[in-house]
C-alpha cells in the first residue's frame, strides 16, 4: 500500500517542482522516489498478505513482484529521458508526473482484488497514456496516435466495463473471491450472463495487451508516439496488462477454463502469426518493434493458456526479459533516430563499426527477443514452452516454434544492417553517460538472467 501511496504523491510533488522551475531536480527526485517505492514494496515480501479496504486490493507476492518489475523498468526508461523531454516539450514536469500517474494505475492493475479496482487501475493508466501519446503537441503523427489510442481505448474500456457489469449481474459482487466461490457453488448452472461477461473482459484486456485481433491500434500508436513513450507502452504497460489478466484468470476464472481456453487459444495463435508475419515486412525498425511486441503478447498469453503453478514465474521472467530487451532497442533507436532522422533499418547501417558498444548491446537485445540461449529471452520462452507442453498443448507449442523461427529473420535484419552492411562511413554517435549506464546495465542483466535465471525464476509466489 505504501508503494501505491508514494507513487501517487510523487507526481504531485513533481508538478510543484515544475511550478518552481526546478528542472534539474525532476529526474533525481523521480528516480529516488521510485526506488524508495520499490524498496517499500520489497519490504512487504514476507508479510502475511490479506486483502485490505473491504477486499479492494491485495498486496501479495504476485503484486509485489510485478510492482517491482514495472517500477524498475520505468526507472530505466526515465533515465534515458534526461534530455529527451526537454527537446520535444516545454512542460517537462508534466511528463514525469503523467508517467508516474500511469504507473500508479499500473500498481492498481497488478494488486487489485476487486473488479472495480481493476477498472480504476486500467483507466488511470490509460488516460495518462492518451496524454503521453500526444505530448508532442505540434507533431501530426503524435496527435494521430493520441486520438486513435483514445478512441479505441475508450471503446475497449466500454467492453471491459460491460463485462464487469454482467459478471456483477450474475454473481452480485465485484470481489474476486466472491466470484470464485460463486462459480464453485454453481458448478452446473452458470448463467449465460456470466459467460458473456468473461468474454467481454477478455476483449477488453486483450486490447490493452495488444493481442490480435484487437491489435489494430498498436502500430500507428507506437509509431506516432515519442519513442520513449512507446518504450513505456510496449514494456511496462504490457507487463501490467498480462499481470492483470493472469491475476483474474488464475484466481477467479480458473475453474471454468474449459469455457475460455478455446477462445484464448485462438487469440494466442492469431496474435503470434499476425505479429510475426507483419513484422517481416516492416522497413522501419520502430514499426517492426511494434509488431514484434504484438507477437510477444502472444507468448505472454501462453502463461494464461497453460495456467498452472508456474504461470506467474513464467510471466515474470518473460516480461522482465522482454522489457529489458525492448528498453535497449528503444534506447538505441532514440540515438540513431536523432542522428539519421529516420527509423528505417538502413539508418543502422555500419553502426557496428562506428559505435561497437551500441551495436553490441542491441545485438544482445535482439538475440534475447529472438530467444537465443544464454539470453534472458530464451529462458522466458523455455518457461512458456515447458508450461504449455505440460498442459499437452503440443500444437500450440509447435506453432510458437514456427513463429520463433520466423522472428529470427526480422530480428537479425538489424544485426545484419549494423555489422554486415557497411555503406558509407558513418560518423560516430555521441552516447551520453546515462545511456551507457542504462544500456550496459540492461545488456548485462539480459545475459546474467540468461545464464543464471534462478535469480528471479525460482521466486515462490
Amino acid at each position, binding site marked *: 500500500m505504501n508503494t501505491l501511496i508514494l507513487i501517487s504523491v510523487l507526481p504531485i510533488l513533481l508538478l510543484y517542482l515544475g511550478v518552481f522551475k526546478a528542472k534539474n531536480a525532476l529526474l533525481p527526485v523521480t528516480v529516488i522516489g521510485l526506488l524508495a517505492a520499490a524498496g517499500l514494496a520489497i519490504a512487504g515480501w514476507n508479510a502475511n498478505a490479506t486483502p485490505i479496504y473491504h477486499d479492494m486490493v491485495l498486496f501479495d507476492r504476485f503484486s509485489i513482484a510485478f510492482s517491482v518489475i514495472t517500477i524498475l523498468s520505468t526507472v530505466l526508461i526515465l533515465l534515458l529521458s534526461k534530455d529527451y523531454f526537454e527537446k520535444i516539450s516545454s512542460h517537462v514536469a508534466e511528463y514525469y508526473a503523467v508517467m508516474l500517474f500511469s504507473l500508479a494505475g499500473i500498481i492498481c492493475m497488478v494488486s487489485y482484488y476487486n473488479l472495480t479496482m481493476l477498472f480504476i487501475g486500467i483507466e488511470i493508466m490509460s488516460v495518462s497514456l492518451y496524454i503521453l501519446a500526444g505530448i508532442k503537441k505540434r507533431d501530426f503523427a503524435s496527435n494521430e496516435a493520441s486520438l486513435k489510442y483514445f478512441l479505441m481505448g475508450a471503446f475497449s474500456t466500454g467492453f471491459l466495463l460491460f463485462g464487469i457489469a454482467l459478471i456483477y449481474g450474475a454473481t452480485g459482487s465485484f470481489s474476486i473471491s466472491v466470484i470464485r466461490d460463486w462459480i464453485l457453488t454453481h458448478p452446473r448452472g452458470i448463467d449465460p450472463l456470466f459467460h458473456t461477461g468473461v468474454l467481454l473482459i477478455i476483449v477488453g484486456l486483450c486490447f490493452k495487451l495488444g493481442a490480435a485481433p484487437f491489435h489494430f491500434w498498436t502500430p500507428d500508436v507506437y509509431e506516432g508516439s515519442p519513442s520513449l513513450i512507446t518504450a513505456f507502452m510496449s514494456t511496462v504497460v504490457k507487463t501490467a496488462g498480462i499481470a492483470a489478466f493472469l491475476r483474474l484468470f488464475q484466481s477467479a476464472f480458473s475453474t471454468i477454463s474449459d469455457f475460455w481456453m478455446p477462445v484464448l487459444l485462438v487469440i494466442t495463435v492469431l496474435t503470434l502469426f499476425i505479429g510475426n508475419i507483419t513484422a517481416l515486412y516492416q522497413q522501419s525498425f520502430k514499426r517492426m518493434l511494434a509488431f514484434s511486441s504484438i507477437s510477444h503478447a502472444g507468448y505472454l498469453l501462453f502463461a494464461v493458456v497453460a495456467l498452472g503453478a508456474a504461470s506467474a514465474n513464467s510471466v515474470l521472467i518473460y516480461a522482465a526479459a522482454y522489457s529489458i530487451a525492448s528498453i535497449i532497442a528503444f534506447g538505441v533507436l532514440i540515438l540513431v533516430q536523432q542522428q539519421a532522422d529516420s527509423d528505417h533499418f538502413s539508418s543502422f547501417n555500419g553502426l557496428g563499426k562506428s559505435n561497437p558498444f551500441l551495436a553490441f548491446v542491441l545485438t544482445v537485445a535482439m*538475440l534475447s527477443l529472438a530467444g*537465443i*540461449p*544464454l539470453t534472458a529471452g*530464451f529462458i522466458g520462452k*523455455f*518457461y512458456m*514452452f*515447458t508450461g504449455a*507442453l*505440460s498442459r499437452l498443448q503440443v500444437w500450440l*507449442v*509447435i506453432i510458437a*516454434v514456427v513463429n*520463433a*523461427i520466423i522472428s*529470427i*529473420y526480422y530480428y*537479425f535484419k538489424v544485426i*545484419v544492417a549494423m*555489422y*554486415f*552492411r557497411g555503406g558509407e562511413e558513418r560518423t560516430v554517435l555521441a552516447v551520453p553517460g546515462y545511456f551507457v549506464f542504462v544500456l550496459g546495465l540492461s545488456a548485462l542483466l539480459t545475459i546474467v538472467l540468461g545464464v*543464471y*535465471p*534462478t535469480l528471479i*525464476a*525460482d521466486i515462490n509466489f
Partner: protein
Amino acid sequence: MTVSILIFLPLIAALAVALIKNQATKHVALLFAIAELVVAALMITRFIPDASMQYVTDLPWMPKMGVYFTVGLDGINIIPVLLNVLLIPVIILASYNHDYKNANAFYALILFMQAGMMTVFTALDGFLFYVGWEAALIPIYFICALWGGENRIRITMKFFIYTFAGSLFMLLAIIYLHLQTPNRTYSISDFYDLHLTLKQQGLVFWAFFLAFAIKMPIFPFHTWQPDTYTEAPSAGTMLLSGIMLKMGVYGAIRWMIPVAPQGFDHWQYIVIALAVAGIVYASLIAFNQKDGKRLVAYSSIAHVGLIGAGVIAWTVTGVQGAMIQMLNHGINVVGLFFIWDIISRRLKTRDLDELGGIAKAAPQFAIAFLIVLLGSVALPLTNGFIGEFLLLKSLYEYNIWLSAVGGLTIIFGAVYMLRMYKKVMQGETSAISALFTDLNGNEKLVLGIICVLIIVLGIYPNVVMHLSDAAVSKLVNSVNDKISQVQSGVNIIAPQR
C-alpha cells in the same frame, strides 16, 4: 580435475582475447587453445577406457526446473572432445595467414564456439546440451557473416534459420522427455530409463533427427551446406566441417537413438536410405564442380552420409567406425579446406579449369596435398581407411545392397578427388598457376601436423580406438536389448500417466 575446465577455459580465453586489440591477439588465442589441448591431453592420458563416466561435474543450475549443470567424459564423447581440442589450435594457426579486420573478435568467436561445442560433447543434461548447441551456432554465424564472401548475408541467414529451426524442434523433444521423467529432470540417464510408447518415441526420434540431419547434413536437409561452406571464410568452413557437423553425429549416438530406441528401430529403414541416397547424390554432384571448395563441400556431404549410415545401422562396428571416422574426417576435411585456402589466397581463384600444373612450381605443397587427398579417399595406411572400412562392414551387416551402394562413396570419392588433384596439380602449368609459390613456414607447420596425424592414425588407429571400445559396446548393446525385448513380445511399456 573435471571436464568443466574444458568448457570454461575457452570461455575465459574468448573474453580475454576480445579485449586485446593488437598484433598479439592471435598468439594469445593460440596459447589458450594449446593450453586447452594440454589440459584435455592430461585428462585423456589418465582416462580409464571402460564404460564409466569420468571427471564429472554436477551442479544445480535451475534446480526448480530440474536443470543441472552436469558434464562428464566417457568413451562416447572422448573422441569428439579430442577432435575439438586438437583442431581448434590447428584452425587458429591456419588463420595466421589471413589479415582479418577486427582480429580480436574473430579469434574470440572461435574460442567461444569451442566452449559451445565442448558443452555439446560433454553435456549429460538435456537442457545444457541444447544451450551448448545454440551457443556454438551464434559465433559461427558471426564468423561466416562478418568475414565471408560476397553473398554471405543471404546465405548465412539461410544457414542460421535452417539450423535454428531444426534445433528448436529438438528443444521441444527435450522438454517433452523432461515432462515424462518421474522426477522432472533433464538428466540423460533418466531419459534412457523412460518407457515411452512407440508413437511418443517416433515423435521424439523425428524431432531429434531433424536437428541432427540438418547439422550433419543428411540428404535432403543439406541445401544450406554447399553455399555456406563456399561463402564462409576458411576458418569458418574448417570449424563447420571439421568439428561442428560432428555435433550431429555425436547427438545421434548419445541422444537420438538411445532415448527413443523403438522409435528409431521403427523408422530406421527410412533414415538409413536417406543417408545412403545422400552419399550417391553428393558424389554425383561433386563430379561436376568447378569450384574446388565447393567440390570438397559436396565430398563432405558424401563422407558424412556414410558416417550417418553407419551410425543408423547401429552395430558396435558401425558406431565404433563412426567414432574414429569423426576424428579422421575432421582432420582430413580441415586439411583439404586449408589446401584450398592456400590456393585461393595465392591465385585468387578456385576454378579447377583455370588451375593446373602447380606441382612443378611447388613440390612440397604437392606432397602434402597428396597425403591429405589419400587420407580423404581412404587409402589403406591412411587414417580414412579404418573408419570407412568399419562403417561399410556395419552397413553390410544391416543390408548388403545398401552397403554396395554406400561403398560407391569410396570409388566415387577416389574419382572426383583424383580428378581434382589432376586438374590442379598436374598437366600443363596454366598462366595463373605459374604465380604459385611454395609453402611458407606457417603452412608447412599446419600441413605437417595434419599429415602426421593422417599417417599415424592410419597405421595405428588403436591409439584412439581403444578409448571408446567399451563404452560403445555397452551403449549399442543396451539399446539393442531394449529393441529386441519389444520385438520378442516382452511388454516393457509402462502405463502412461
